[in-house]
């Protein structure tokens, strides 16, 4: 605390007449977050600090909040009495959070909303107990942000997604580790995301790119996922029901839901037992679509030059998707590495299995990847394991089927 107090002095001098009703650590930190002048750095001391309420920053510019390191500055929200997140940053410009840990928040770990320029660097956000549906939803959670950089972070234990970027624009997620979450990393209704050099393991699903209905930022897309290691994501799903990730089957590597313009390349997709990579429309969620402006089909997807590997083993039988694998798909131990639900938008020019223009799904030059088109539109009647219709490059002229 000594260092913190010294840092406070410069700001406090403006408020020398101010008394505090009941000073304690949270109050000092919170007061600092309110009174900090634009452009300043808030240095957090080494130690474990237990907070009984959310810490929040609002309406600031060019602020860095910096701890002494992931294992050295630990902010614990165990026993939190108020607030729906650990640290909340809203309505700010150019904020950097680095070198500290946030643990056991009642809701989300670190939530940033309406921030243009948000960097999470060397932050660990986690729930320290077992993966549990009573853990918070998101460990690192930028929403409605622009210019997002998440690097060298660790996310663990989230009952929804460890690293979750929602309704945001211009995003880089790199060199992070996400494990023992329902979803390791999720990019949802977001534009221009590059996700690379991450390792996601022991989650239910490793890396998800979703476009969902009923939201403010409707159409995501233009995502590149490359050089990630996505392995061993076979953890039983522990999300509370009602949440879309609750439908993700264990053993999911990469799942693309109704998203567009996604390129996936040079990833290591290893030992994810059910759906190493899935490309599905929103119809597969079996949720009704009431949003007339929503586009439920995945389009313009290019999956190439990835490495796939997994042992011969049956897909999960758990959950709705597990039932689908067991009773409808019946792959046995020959579980395909890449599945496409095959539900095509009739309004787009298409052949039998794929679109015939630049909206098509292309799968090319992956190592060790088997494929299946699920023919979900026709009750899985004509499941096809032939990947030839998908062998294309979306940047070249379409080969008409």
């Amino acid at each position, binding site marked *: 605390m000594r260092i913190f107090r010294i840092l406070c002095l410069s700001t406090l001098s403006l408020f020398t007449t101010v008394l505090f*009703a*009941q000073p304690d650590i949270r109050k000092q930190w919170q007061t600092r977050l309110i009174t900090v002048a634009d452009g300043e750095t808030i240095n957090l001391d080494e130690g474990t600090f237990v907070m009984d309420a959310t810490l929040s920053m609002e309406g600031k510019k060019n602020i860095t909040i910096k701890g002494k390191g992931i294992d050295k500055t630990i902010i614990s929200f165990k026993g*939190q009495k108020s607030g729906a997140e650990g640290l909340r940053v809203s309505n700010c410009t150019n904020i950097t959070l680095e070198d500290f840990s946030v643990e056991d928040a009642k809701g989300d770990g670190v939530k940033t909303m309406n921030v243009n320029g948000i960097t999470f660097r060397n932050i660990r956000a986690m729930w320290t107990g077992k993966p549990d549906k009573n853990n918070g939803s998101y460990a690192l959670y930028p929403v409605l942000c622009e210019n997002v950089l998440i690097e060298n972070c660790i996310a663990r234990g989230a009952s929804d997604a460890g690293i979750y970027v929602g309704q945001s624009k211009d995003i880089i997620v790199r060199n992070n580790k996400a494990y023992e979450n329902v979803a390791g990393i999720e990019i949802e209704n977001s534009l221009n995301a590059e996700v690379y050099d991450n390792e996601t393991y022991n989650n239910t699903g490793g890396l998800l790119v979703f476009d969902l209905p009923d939201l403010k930022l409707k159409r995501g897309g233009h995502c590149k996922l490359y050089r990630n290691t996505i392995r061993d994501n076979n953890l039983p799903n522990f999300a509370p029901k009602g949440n879309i990730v609750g439908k993700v089957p264990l053993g999911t590597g990469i799942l693309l839901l109704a998203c567009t313009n996604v390129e996936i390349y040079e990833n290591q997709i290893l030992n994810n037992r059910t759906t190493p990579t899935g490309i599905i429309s929103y119809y597969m969620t079996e949720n009704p679509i009431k949003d007339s402006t929503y586009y439920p089909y995945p389009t313009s997807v290019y999956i190439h030059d990835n490495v796939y590997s997994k042992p011969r083993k049956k897909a999960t039988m758990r959950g709705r998707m597990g039932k689908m694998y067991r009773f409808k798909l019946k792959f046995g131990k020959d579980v395909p590495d890449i599945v496409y639900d095959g539900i095509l938008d009739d309004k787009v020019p298409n052949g039998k299995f794929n679109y015939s223009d630049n909206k098509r799904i292309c799968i090319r030059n992956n190592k060790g990847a088997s494929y299946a088109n699920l023919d979900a539109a026709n009750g899985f009647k004509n499941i096809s394991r032939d990947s030839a219709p998908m062998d294309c490059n979306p940047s070249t002229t379409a080969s008409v089927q």
Partner: protein
Amino acid sequence: MKSRLLIFFSVILTSLCVGAAVDRPHPPKELLSQYGFFKGVLKDQQPADGIMPYSLSTPLFSDYAEKLRFVFIPVGLSAKFNDSSVFNFPEGTVLIKTFYFPVDFRNPSKGRRLMETRLLIHEGSRWIAYPYIWNEDQKDAVYDPAGEVKAVKYVDLNGKKKEHNYFIPNQNQCKGCHNQNEVLVPLGPSARQMNHDMMYSSGKQNQLLYWEQNDKLSGFKPSDAKNVGIVWNDPATGTLDQRARLWLDINCGFCHQPQGPAASSGLHLHMQESDPLRIGINKTPVAAGRGSGDRRFDIVPGKPVESILIFRMESDDPGIMMPELGRSVKHQEGIALIKEWIAGMK
């Protein structure tokens, strides 16, 4: 006291006159008493000259705290009336709100404990919020931007002894509610919340009429003064649907609307929303996490217990409950109203 008040506001007004270039707000005063809003003993909350008390027909639920509201509008200036949203207040306006718990809700003469007084000051063409927390001795309230959780106890309207935490938000969290497009705004003083009688030192009178007659409200037709407000818990004032929507509007709609901080959820609970999906009917949650409570939709018509809305209203876990700020206990009567509303839906 009066002279001090005038000095304070003449300072504000002078700085305004010098130019709206006053970029930095005045630092808040250390003590509430230093503003001179009240005459006599501070805790009696007797408004000084020029300060008007007012009340709202359906206030936001705040852990059963009672609220006293006052407004200062600078001499010679007035608020501008409109019939659909919060009035346009001139610069220099201060909205003052004191939260308290009666010792016994059935018998106000047994005294009360003041918890906090929040000031919303309109200065430099923006609103600024300053929270003051009352001392245990109740002699004054101290500026404290960091918020606090305090234990309260009282006897409720049914004669039951109650003990729970009372949550005082930090200064940033004011904007958790008072927020439109990330600009801090007042929420209460509007025609639909204020068109009813109030007891003044001069006697009982319609609030809007009183403001108008004291030159504090312009653009208001005195003939429009009546008791028309829908009161959420008074069936004589509106249908179940109207009262439920009003309760949701006041308690949820400041965030859950297109310009509010909960816009990202796609759930809009403000009065003006008419799309059933946006109101939550058969709407799936987006980022509710464990707030979904294993339920699939925000509102399932006819089935309140299957509706996420009710689950979150019935929780007091900060990671689940809604509203996510400003309460630590459940609003039983509000829950009953919304349950009845959902149960009646087809």
